[in-house]
């Protein structure tokens, strides 16, 4: 039974990673850049909900919606100010700018909200499910996390397959120049991608802070890096890949923590990533890189 409950915990953590990784992978697929600041948008989402709910006593659902709006706007603004001018520049330059944005968000949060760790009150008031005569308890947050991850995944896939904007995203990720010639508004598509990714980050922030109820300006940094690892693990640029990578990484982390060593959990997570990349360098679902001279 304890194995099963660990597996469920792993799935829950993995779902959060998957939602964050979706943001990374979409931005990478379409803008061809690593948005290092993505993890810190999660933290911003967490603070918005915390301040509205605990500070202003606002309805949880409304505050989550407010967080999504704030993060979406933030994502688009970051893209417009920091990343758009660098389009076509050296990819290293873009990466460093993203790191600068990440530093900026962390330090701005430090000034605005203070460095103390806040105790986050779970947004969801769902009773835990007891199965097998009370031997197996699943918390409400876990259920909501897993379900929302699956819903988001399916929603995104449908959005990309069925809508015009989704098709435009696909086209831009395949060949930006050709898409532009075909009349796709590339700038708008990239903005939309950042908007969706950042909105997802807000949801991930709420779920993360509900499952692990602490909040500080550095809350987003480590989950951000791990989710990025998950995106690479699954094959960066691929949406199902981000999902699979996230879930696997979450399960591996919880299992490693429980059965091997709690201090070595990160070593195990990163070790697995290295092994996967060496066996299949473009990740589980990644496309092989074609090379031309």
């Amino acid at each position, binding site marked *: 039974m304890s194995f099963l409950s660990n597996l469920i915990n792993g799935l829950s953590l993995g779902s959060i990673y998957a939602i964050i990784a979706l943001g990374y992978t979409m931005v990478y697929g379409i803008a061809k850049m690593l948005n290092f600041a993505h993890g810190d948008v999660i933290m911003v989402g967490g603070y918005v909900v915390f301040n509205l709910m605990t500070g202003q006593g606002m309805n949880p659902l409304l505050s989550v919606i407010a967080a999504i709006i704030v993060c979406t706007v933030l994502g688009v603004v970051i893209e417009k100010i920091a990343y758009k001018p*660098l389009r*076509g*520049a050296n990819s*290293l330059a873009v990466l460093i700018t993203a790191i600068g944005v990440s530093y900026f968000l962390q330090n*701005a949060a430090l000034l605005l909200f203070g460095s103390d760790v806040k105790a986050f009150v779970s947004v969801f008031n769902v009773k835990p499910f007891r199965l097998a005569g009370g031997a197996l308890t699943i918390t409400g947050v876990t259920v909501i996390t897993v379900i929302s991850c699956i819903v988001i995944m399916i929603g995104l896939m449908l959005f990309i397959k069925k809508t015009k904007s989704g098709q435009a995203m696909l086209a831009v990720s395949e060949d930006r120049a050709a898409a532009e010639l075909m009349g796709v508004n590339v700038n708008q598509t990239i903005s939309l991608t950042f908007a969706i990714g950042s909105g997802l980050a807000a949801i991930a922030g709420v779920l993360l802070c509900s499952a692990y109820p602490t909040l500080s300006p550095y809350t987003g940094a480590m989950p951000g890096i791990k989710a990025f690892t998950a995106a690479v693990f699954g094959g960066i640029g691929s949406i199902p890949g981000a999902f699979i990578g996230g879930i696997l990484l979450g399960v591996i982390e919880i299992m490693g923590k429980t059965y091997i060593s709690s201090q*070595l959990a990160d070593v195990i997570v990163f070790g697995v990533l290295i092994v996967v990349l*060496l066996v299949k360098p473009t990740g589980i679902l990644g496309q092989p890189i074609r090379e031309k001279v």
Partner: protein
Amino acid sequence: MAAVKKFQSILKNKEVSRPLITYAMVILAYLIIQVLISGGILSNLLQGLLVPLCIYSIAAVGLNLCVGYLGELSIGHAGFMCVGAFTSAFFTKCTMNSGMNEMVRFLIALVIGILCAALAGYLIGIPVLRLRGDYLAIVTLAFGEIIMNLINVVFIGRDSRGFHFSMKDSVSLNLEEDGEAIMNGAKGIMRIPHQSSFTIGIILLLISLFVCYQLVNSRTGRAIMAIRDNRIAAESVGIDITRFKLLAFTISAAIAGAAGVLYGHNLATLIATPANFGYNMSIMILVFVILGGMGNFRGSVIAAVVLTLLPELLRGLSDYRMLMYSIILIIMMLYNWSPKIIAFRERHFRGKLHKKEEKEVA
């Protein structure tokens, strides 16, 4: 007269003059600071910054070799610093009461630290350099985090029966009463003799610069740059890609190890935290390299010095300094790399420059 002319012609050769100017700059800075210290002008705060400045400069020079010349982004270089710091500090602790001359002991510790970091770089380089681009970056990050986390669970103690090793806790080392836990897991190594000094730091910096400049201006260096510029073309003219990549990566790691040795002997207690050996540090060094200019060692040193001093000098705005630092970083990146801003600069500034040159010609 002939000697002067010869000297002038040497200076005209950029490959020769560039390193010379850099060395001269470092030595001049050293002399000025020595004068300031003896004049009692330098505050304690700034004096405490001198060794870290050397550490960051050395690490930035080493990373620049990897990023600027090899063209591979490594965000795990703090891991190599970590290896250098801990292996050398471990050696120093082991031989502390052996009556060895302090300078000799430090030199051996330095060599051990550098060799261990180079070995780590070599071993990690073999798998990592098969990958490319973002994947390579994330794997170096992963290795850096792994090194840091592993150091935090290693316990090594010594007593009359010899060395004891554990990965659990200091109790399971089963030390006898006379024993001492040298490496204490997350508590790190304690009471390390303070042996790093500004002079040693400057000497190490000069040696690192010398090694890098010599390498870059050699046949090997040109092979490395050829790989960076076009891997497939380089391979097709018979350059052994794996060998040269590994060589550059290993040297880069070794230099980071030297910076680590300096770090390890600068503070009494050496612990591996995300702040000093985590990816934050790797990124910090990367920022020095990028802002100083990829492939420009002098720039790395200047950037490391300016960006370390800037937040300290802006302490008056204490709370806002990190925020301002990040804003400066973003603005500088946009100014240097944005295609539109570059075009704007070309139109308005380069234009004037050309006109001036034309006038001179006329």
